[in-house]
């Protein structure tokens, strides 16, 4: 089954989509589509069959999102915790992933036509090497596309992601690119795997579970979270479930504006941090002499400028390091 499904909506669906589009639409939707195994058990089919159907449903959901004008989608494909499952099942899932990424590489023309950029988020080094290579190839070959974005979280948990971001910042301080006082909420966000995406506006979890299961905890802290009780791979998951979630987002739209408020608070925190760094600097260099307000202000401005420069240099270095991994991995296949 292919990643990109083409096809138009039915008349009624198109009509409803247009009505929804008259309101505020989410730009980025995240999905936890679980319940594949429960579905398989219910229908008395093999577990693997359940997972395969889950993927097909994903492809269909992507098409619906595109039809609704949602251009960025993030899905939780495989959690680091899932490695605890039986060997047989983990191997099966890895095989399925290999098959699907191979398929993806065959579909270059389609991906180009729709401008789909694929990103794979997670600690990929935990995966078998051949899968790492396939993933890298897919990521590198679609990097230039910018019409719609599909983020696949694979070997991912949010806590690992946050810990990884802290590790990268520590690497920056070790390399002398950063100072530990430069660490801020904004910088941490930019060190996460999701640094190139806006935070999701809407998170949908199917299957009736009412928890986040270590998915995008940082990024969805002010998003609209919708729990639905259909199993994702079942035939009953329909276009209308997605519409319902979008409606719920629209009803919440005004209350979730708190996010903007949070951003202001963030800027205030940054200013406060800069001020205290400047005070420290002045105390160290000024031999205890009192400093007048104007020169203090000049020092603050120059400090802020130098901090911003450090941060942007560090982020460039981090991006290069990440790109290098994908390039390296995808290049290996060409040599072999």
């Amino acid at each position, binding site marked *: 089954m292919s990643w990109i499904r083409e096809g138009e909506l039915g008349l009624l669906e198109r009509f409803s989509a*247009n*009505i929804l*589009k*008259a*309101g505020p639409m989410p730009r980025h939707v995240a999905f936890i589509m679980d319940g594949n195994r429960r579905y398989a058990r219910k229908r008395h089919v093999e577990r693997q069959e359940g997972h395969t159907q889950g993927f097909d449903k994903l492809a269909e959901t992507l098409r619906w999102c595109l039809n609704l004008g949602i251009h960025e989608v993030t899905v939780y494909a495989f*959690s680091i*915790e*899932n*490695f*605890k499952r039986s060997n047989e099942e983990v191997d099966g899932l890895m095989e399925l992933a290999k098959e699907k990424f191979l398929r993806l590489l065959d579909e270059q023309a389609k991906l180009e036509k729709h401008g789909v950029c694929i990103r794979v988020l997670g600690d990929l080094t935990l995966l078998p090497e051949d899968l790492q290579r396939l993933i890298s190839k897919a990521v590198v070959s679609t990097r230039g596309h910018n019409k719609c974005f599909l983020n696949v979280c694979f070997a991912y*948990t*949010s*806590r690992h992601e*946050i*810990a990884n*971001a*802290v*590790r*990268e*910042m*520590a*690497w*920056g*301080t*070790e390399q002398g690119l*950063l*100072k*530990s*006082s430069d*660490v*801020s*909420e904004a910088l*941490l966000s930019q060190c996460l795997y999701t640094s190139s995406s806006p935070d999701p506006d809407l998170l949908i979890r199917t299957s009736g*579970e*009412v*928890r*986040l*299961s*270590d998915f995008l*905890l*940082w990024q*969805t*802290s*002010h*998003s*609209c*979270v*919708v*729990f639905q009780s259909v199993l994702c791979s079942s035939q009953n998951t329909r276009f209308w479930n997605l519409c319902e979630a979008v*409606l*719920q987002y*629209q*009803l*919440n739209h005004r*209350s*979730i504006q*708190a996010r903007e408020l*949070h951003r202001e*608070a963030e800027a205030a*925190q940054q200013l406060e941090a800069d001020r205290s760094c400047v005070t420290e600097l002045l105390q160290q260099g000024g031999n205890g002499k009192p400093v007048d307000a104007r020169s203090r202000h000049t020092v603050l401005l120059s400090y802020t400028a130098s901090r911003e420069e450090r941060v942007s240099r560090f982020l460039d270095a981090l991006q290069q390091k990440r790109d290098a991994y994908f390039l390296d991995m995808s290049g290996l296949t060409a040599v072999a």
Partner: protein
Amino acid sequence: MAIVYDLVWRVLHLLLQLQRAAVSAFAWKRNWLLWRRAAAAVLLPLALGFANQKKLGAAAGKRPSRRYRVLTDGKALEKLPLHVGLLVAEEEVQYTDIANVVVWCMALGISYVSVYDNEGVFRRNNSRLMEEIVKQQKELLGSESCKYSSEFLNNGADAQEQDDGKLSIVRAAQQLCKSVEQKESTPKDITVSVLDFTLRESKNLPDPELVLKFGTVDSTLGFLPWHIRLTEFISFPSHKDVSYDDFLCALRRYASCEQRLGK
């Protein structure tokens, strides 16, 4: 055509908002009916009690029965969370209702209760909430139970700060980076468990297993992002006049739910 869609959208949302208002009004009315029924149930044995033992005061007849009910309810639940978060996502805050829920949690034997709202109302008025909790505790559980749980109150119930979530992670990150800067550790030392440990240095609370969310907003509004990894979220339309039965129903739902932890 766009105007038609826009019009239909507006009508649809108006209807949904009406429906929402109707649901909360209905919830209020149902609570009121339940309350009346409960009052009748309490008053009836009370009247009998008066007939049999005239020495006992009315209050003494009523309170223990409620208290024993709560205690047996706690034992009847298959699993009880250690830490419950109360997330209030409403503009108007009723201290009495929140205090009630806190007291029910305590009576059931839940060790930690965190109260959170994204505007920081509870953090600013922490003492008012505490007062209200003590008052409700006396009212609901009788004065003798105050002794054993007042200590529990000091470290158990806790009004979370608004910036306790991401900001505390940033502070922990700064601390870890500083130790790398001073060559005390290397980036490789930083793992999930190290970060978790650093985060718990300032305030050692277990992760909340259950969050009761009050209000129609479907969002966690920044509530402890690191700690809610496996937290179950159960929503109530409002915290105003929330009833004991609704509360117990949520805990039953929590007790019946199975967590597979990735397996």
